[in-house]
């Protein structure tokens, strides 16, 4: 086995991949949120933003490929770690604790990363299946010519169950990030008693901003914007 495959198959190596890919996705979320805020400034602002992205299409495509790789590795290794860790607990004659003290010794977001991650994954598929597909695959020419991007966003955000799922998913994303942010620092070995509380608080603030930021758009469209164009 080469040194690299030995590394990525070790317990620390797998954590390292989770942290690297997760960090990349966290940076992406910031950019994604800032871009999406143009929705609040009306159709022209948002359509203009999408067109700007369109004008640098080759670069965007490269970023999309990297993004896809980050998602694939983060999800694959997350699932692999979950599966392997499941096997280290219990078993036929080991059993589970009758009383489990985990509520007192760890945080909710730390214990639920796999569950929140799984729900976010389902949301991600739906998210790509709606917005990404409509913007990029389903008649993009027509969209570009008639400035229909904003119309489509508004269309989806009038569907109550879509809005509800969207809001639930981004709140869970907040929990996922609350653990993930500080967890990445710990995995990279950047933890000491002096600055780590600051990292943990920054992570919580980051998670809240992301959850509220992404939730604000469907809520705004559903309750306040109302279909008026």
């Amino acid at each position, binding site marked *: 086995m080469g*040194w690299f495959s030995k*590394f990525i198959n*070790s*317990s*620390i*190596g*797998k*954590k*390292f991949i989770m942290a690297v890919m997760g960090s990349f996705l966290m940076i992406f979320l910031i950019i994604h949120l800032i871009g999406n805020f143009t929705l609040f400034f009306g159709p022209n602002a948002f359509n203009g933003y999408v067109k700007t992205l369109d004008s640098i299409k080759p670069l965007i495509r490269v970023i999309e490929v990297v993004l896809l790789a980050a998602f694939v590795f983060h999800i694959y290794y997350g699932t692999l*770690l979950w599966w*392997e*860790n499941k*096997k*280290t*607990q*219990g*078993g*036929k*004659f*080991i*059993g*589970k*604790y*009758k*009383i*489990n*003290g*985990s509520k*007192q*010794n*760890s*945080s909710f977001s*730390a*214990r639920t*990363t796999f569950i929140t991650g799984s729900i976010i994954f389902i949301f991600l598929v739906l998210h790509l299946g709606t917005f990404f597909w409509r913007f990029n695959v389903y008649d993009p020419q027509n969209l570009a010519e008639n400035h229909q991007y904003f119309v489509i966003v508004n269309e989806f955000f009038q569907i109550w169950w879509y809005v509800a799922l969207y809001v639930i998913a981004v709140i869970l994303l907040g929990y996922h990030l609350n*653990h993930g942010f*500080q*967890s990445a620092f*710990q*995995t*990279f*070995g*950047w*933890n*000491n*008693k002096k600055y*780590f509380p600051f990292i943990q608080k920054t992570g919580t603030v980051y998670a809240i901003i992301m959850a509220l930021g992404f939730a604000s758009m469907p809520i705004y469209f559903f309750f306040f914007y109302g279909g008026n164009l």
Partner: protein
Amino acid sequence: MTNTNINLTLNIWRQESADAKGDFEQFKVTVSSDASILEMLDELNNKLEKEGKIPIAFESDCREGICGTCGLVVNGHPHGPLPKIATCQLHMRNFKDGETLFIEPFRATAFKVIKDLIVDRSGFDKIQQAGGFVSFNTGSAPDANAIPIPKEIASLALDSAECIGCGACVAACKNSSAMLFVGAKVSQFALLPQGQPERYERVMNMVAAMDEAGFGSCTNTYACEAECPKGISVTNIARMNRDYFMAVIKK
């Protein structure tokens, strides 16, 4: 000190061997509030023996919190619900009269039950044998300050060396990860000059032995630090990760 007796209902895990099905057995006891939980089990075992029943198997040695032999999960917490004590230092005055206790072994696939509350922690020995030592002759005790070590570093190394290898971190972890133990054992040498020659080889070998022994991967829930009887910090895991990355690059 007033010696008061309290009545407790104990649900204790009984299991014949590693490949036998276990279950809780209930006992009603009256115990002095000054007794430790192990002394309570001693009394209970005396009673069981007199009645011709099989006593409850549990481990203990020093009974002053420094050897790491004892280890019970009391009401869902390794070494009981109080912070920074070993099971032997858990006194019954911390429980209320009439309370129900659940006493379980450390549960992890890597810690097979030997009998009742005794588990096989030889996985830790295998990790230690893979590199938890300095392999050159250090001679007799050197003169003071022959090797200058800043106080701050010496204290950090001693904090790591506080680990008694009891396995509570594995028992508390939802992934049965041994990384707090390994982190402490790696750190106590990585911080000191005597540990430098084998620093990267050590972390490589110990992590490999840890993975081999069937412990899980850390997901940074920090349950281990919360339950550790010696309060070993998760910064030890971070140091191990750092050293491991360096080892991957260098070795």
